């Protein structure tokens, strides 16, 4: 399977099953499908009036060389890996720890419904947090790297428990040989010098929520009193990042139907000095006024391209540019094909734990009774549900099997699929369109910068 597209002045050819990516000239771009499908003589005959014979022969030969070397029209043999992959021993190696089901902002698009996930407001106790760490240590088999994301609601509303959980996990590391990596997703309202220093010392990654331009952020992310949050949080985020050194962070926004010109929000955040930026499409029922509509997708795809081109300009004219999460792609390394088949691991190796210790497939499913998996004391008891999630992979959906982007998105987000189609093992087509465009921009940028 191949995919070809144009970005700026480059013709780009992807060989999906080897992962090889080529920049090709106009002749090769036009004839490549025929070189794959037809005998050489027929290809030469088809294009003989259009291109000089010598040039045409040369292009055909070069494409055939790629094919012979396993970098064009490579066979798809990965489906054979699926049975072994389905028989793997169940391992849980990442937890989204909901330390607070309460929030000090009132974001209009919050899937957690202002933090309480359609249930009771509540804080995780240290006892539950410790049990969650024990659950991970016990169920992660031989995996060394264990991930815990402090999430909410707003996790800093329960900062003492965060510290207690980190201390406990560090004490468990020695006896279990595990390496806990902590991350936190925060809205920033409660950040102060003490908390900033703590997060910068203990958190492997921090995700800082800001939607971009002041008017955009304040429209969707008001305080509980209905005022804007931008002026409260921006100076705190700047201070955190200034003091963070080289450690990982993202400033992360959500864009909605109200700001489909979100490239301006990404650029605004970059211009405020943030070097690691992410912007995510909102996940919302389509009847909500802020939900992305089918007609928005074309505009959004054009906006990704506008962003990519501005980033390219900054790279070339300003000698450097910020990183945009979805345009980061490692073409020479990156994850193995097993990871690319399986995706995020929600419901199997990645779970979410609520303040009362209940387990769900991921943060997006919390509060949906039919998705409850078990609890941090007894572990996963809903084996049927786990098996359904384990089975999700790029070969369990026809749309993914035939998609050129399958080894980059790995089948997409189960929660998106469920929210839009009522089935975790389906595809959210608008999300697919956006994902494919992001990948073209990411690879197009790499190609343009390789010159």
């Amino acid at each position: 399977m191949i995919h070809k597209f144009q970005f700026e002045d480059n013709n780009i050819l992807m060989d999906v099953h080897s992962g090889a990516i080529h920049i090709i000239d106009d002749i090769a771009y036009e004839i490549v499908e025929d070189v794959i499908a037809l005998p050489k003589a027929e290809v030469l005959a088809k294009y003989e009036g259009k291109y000089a014979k010598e040039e045409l022969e040369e292009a055909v030969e070069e494409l055939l060389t790629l094919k012979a070397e396993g970098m064009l029209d490579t066979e798809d043999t990965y489906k054979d890996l699926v049975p072994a992959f389905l028989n793997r021993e169940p391992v849980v190696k990442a937890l989204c720890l909901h330390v607070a089901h309460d929030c000090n902002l009132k974001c209009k698009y919050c899937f957690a419904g202002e933090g309480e996930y359609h249930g009771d407001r509540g804080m995780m106790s240290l006892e539950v947090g410790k049990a969650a760490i024990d659950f991970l240590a016990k169920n992660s088999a031989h995996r060394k790297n264990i991930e815990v994301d402090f999430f909410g609601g707003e996790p800093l509303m329960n900062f003492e428990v965060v510290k207690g959980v980190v201390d406990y996990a560090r004490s468990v590391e020695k006896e279990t040989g595990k390496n806990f990596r902590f991350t936190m997703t925060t809205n920033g309202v409660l950040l102060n010098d003490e908390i900033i220093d703590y997060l910068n010392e203990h958190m492997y990654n921090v995700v800082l929520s800001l939607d971009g331009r002041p008017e955009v952020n304040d429209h969707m992310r008001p305080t509980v009193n209905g005022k804007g949050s931008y002026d409260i949080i921006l100076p705190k985020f700047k201070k955190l990042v200034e003091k963070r050194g080289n450690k990982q962070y993202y400033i992360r926004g959500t864009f909605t139907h109200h700001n489909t010109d979100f490239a301006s929000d990404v650029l605004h955040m970059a211009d405020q000095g943030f070097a690691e930026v992410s912007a995510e499409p909102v996940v919302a029922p389509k009847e909500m006024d802020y939900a992305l509509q089918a007609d928005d997708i074309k505009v959004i795809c054009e906006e990704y391209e506008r962003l990519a081109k501005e980033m390219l300009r900054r790279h070339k004219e300003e000698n450097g540019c910020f990183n945009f999460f979805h345009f980061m792609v490692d073409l020479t390394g990156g994850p193995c094909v097993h990871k690319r088949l399986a995706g995020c691991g929600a419901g199997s190796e990645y779970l979410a734990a609520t303040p009362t210790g209940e387990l769900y497939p991921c943060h997006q499913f919390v509060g949906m009774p039919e998705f409850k998996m078990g609890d941090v004391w007894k572990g996963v008891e809903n084996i049927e549900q786990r098996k359904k999630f384990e089975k999700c992979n790029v070969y369990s959906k026809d749309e993914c099997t035939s998609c050129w982007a399958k080894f980059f998105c790995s089948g997409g987000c189960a929660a998106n699929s469920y929210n839009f189609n009522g089935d975790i093992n389906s595809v959210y087509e608008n999300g697919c369109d956006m994902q494919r465009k992001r990948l073209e921009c990411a690879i197009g940028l790499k190609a343009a910068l390789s010159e």
Partner: protein
Amino acid sequence: MKHVKTLNTKNLKNSAAKGGCGECQTSCQSACKTSCTVGNQACEK
């Protein structure tokens, strides 16, 4: 080559042989929390 410039010589098949250790970051923990992108994760090996 005159008509083709190859950006990478990556072969996913090679990664099938050695891969699958499961030590890499769970993609949703990084920055997205809603839209899975596995292609930008790093291999731990």
